[in-house]
């Protein structure tokens, strides 16, 4: 936990510097007749972030904040595995939306999550993997008229468009 606190604070300090540099692309000073420049607001707030990060690091050195005193692990092995599987599966799902579309990615994600993490029966898994995309389609595409990305599967939806839209 102690190391993680420091690593996060340092990472955030670097992020603050990057944001300061980025916001300085627009004028950050006073422009006569116009008031503060467009970059001033984000610039000074990023400076605020940097000051806070340094403050957090100082507190870490002096061991005055609870995480900087904690000797517990930031994540034990079980949590780390759960986190990696969860975040990894989500990343894979969002990535695959670009290729096979939402209606390909949703069932795959559900099957993976329910079978591998949840150990649910195939019957349960299949039911949800079929129902969820159907409900999503009717709610978003038909009711809300929001077209979700379909990637390669786009041609499969032409008959459905003809039917419902």
């Amino acid at each position: 936990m102690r190391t993680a606190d420091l690593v996060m604070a340092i990472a955030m300090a670097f992020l603050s510097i990057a944001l300061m540099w980025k916001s300085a692309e627009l004028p950050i000073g006073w422009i006569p007749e116009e008031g503060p420049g467009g970059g001033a607001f984000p610039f000074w707030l990023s400076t605020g972030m940097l000051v806070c990060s340094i403050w957090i690091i100082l507190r870490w050195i002096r061991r005055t904040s609870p995480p900087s005193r904690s000797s517990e692990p930031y994540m034990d092995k079980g949590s780390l595995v759960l986190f990696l599987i969860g975040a990894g599966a989500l990343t894979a799902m969002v990535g695959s939306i670009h290729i096979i579309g939402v209606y390909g990615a949703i069932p795959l994600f559900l099957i993976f999550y329910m079978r591998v993490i949840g150990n649910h029966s195939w019957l349960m898994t299949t039911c949800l993997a079929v129902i969820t995309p159907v409900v999503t389609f009717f709610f978003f595409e038909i009711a809300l008229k929001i077209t979700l990305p379909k990637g390669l599967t786009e041609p499969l939806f032409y008959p459905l468009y003809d039917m419902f839209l």
Partner: protein
Amino acid sequence: MDILALLADGFWVALQPQNLLLVVLGVTVGLFIGAMPGLGSVNGVAILLPMTFLVPPTGAIIFLGAIYYGAMYGGAISSIMLGIPGASTAVATTFDGRPMALQGNADRALVTAAIASFIGGTISVLLFTFFAPPLANVALAFSSPEEFSLMLLAFATFIGLGGDDIPKTLFSICIGLVMSSVGLDLISGQPRMIFFGLPGFFHGIHFLVLAIGIYGIGEILWTVESSKGGMKLSQATLTLRRIIQGIKTTKETFKATVMGSFLGYFVGILPAAGATPGSLMAYGVAKSLSKNPETFGKGNPNGVAAPEAANNAASTGSMLPMLTLGIPGSPTTAILLGGMVIWGLEPGPMLFVEHKSFVWGLIASLYVANLFALLINVAFIPAFVWVLKLPFTILAPIIFILCIVGGYAPTQDMHDVWLMLIFGVVAYLMRKLDYPMAPAVLAIVLGPLAETSLRQSLLISDGSFSVFFDRPIACVFMIIAIALFALPVLNLIKKRLMHKTHG
């Protein structure tokens, strides 16, 4: 009398068949979300906001308001049955609710919680009805210096009263405001903070992307981790006779309930405080006022009634500054406020002038939601208990999918979905290190207004910060804000001095 006429109009809106249906649906969904361990009103409202594009704005906010209410009722269910708070707002309910359940009085605890929530909700909506119009009238006179100082005051409450690590709270506020500035400069129209030249940044970072990231993805990752151990569900046998018995015994808890309602309402108004501290304070006060405080923590029904009344009252309280001043009183109302912007309504006092039927429809719907929440809660307790048995490995992936699709809906850009995923993962990692997340959500919602009002104020005064102190109302806000910022420092000095005199 004016108010009563407006309220009557509001009821006419709220009782329209579609709106009534939305209230019932919202309350039911809210109760389910509240009952799920770990998920509360803020998660429900963030994840389901994109779904409300289906109905007109008044219907949408009525639905979300009903979810807010329902979730406050529902939080008690898992606190009592599992001993795990359904949401942070129901933490105090576990103290006596769980012991009651273990003694075989789960049904009584549930009925007490539902009735206390109802009384808390009713008292707070009454207070709201009569407080809101005069406050909105005062706020109509505000111009940019007052607006900015008021927002500073809202952020200052997080420092002075939030109780989280101070540099981390400040960091959270700053990063939220910086994120709100991505996109086009509001005044000059120039693009700014366009990272790596990605076109997705031109439309800015939508507040829902951050809100769903934090309260959807981040929260579920958190819950998956914290619920990996087994849970023990209490038994509750509910018959009509036992419910009536339960209702009869609420007389004993009436005093604590009323106290909790008033306390919760006023604590709820403060942006940083809200339902969680409100309910904890109500528990503390109920205990100290009790004739036998030693029975608290061992299954005293007053320990269930006070916090439950307080958290419902606080949810109404937090709507007061949102509707009248445009400053949300809680993370949930911050998301509602952002939603109002999507629906094309400008939050703040002008709502009471320009969109009367919207405001009063919402207020009236709170009365209706409160009644339905009580009825549905008591009638379907077994169904909500069943929810607790639902394995999280089914709920989690479905909520993840709702987040991803819901995050895509407002801007229809995959860029935002990726951003949301990154925010969710980073928020989860930061939350483990005690970085508070609510200030960042409030900041991204208020950011554009804060920046505009700051720049306009400085333009009026030609760059001098004295503009915030020359005007009486702004000056009062500034002084309170500075005092709140200074509060933790003063506490620290006091502690050091005490330490010295003792050591």
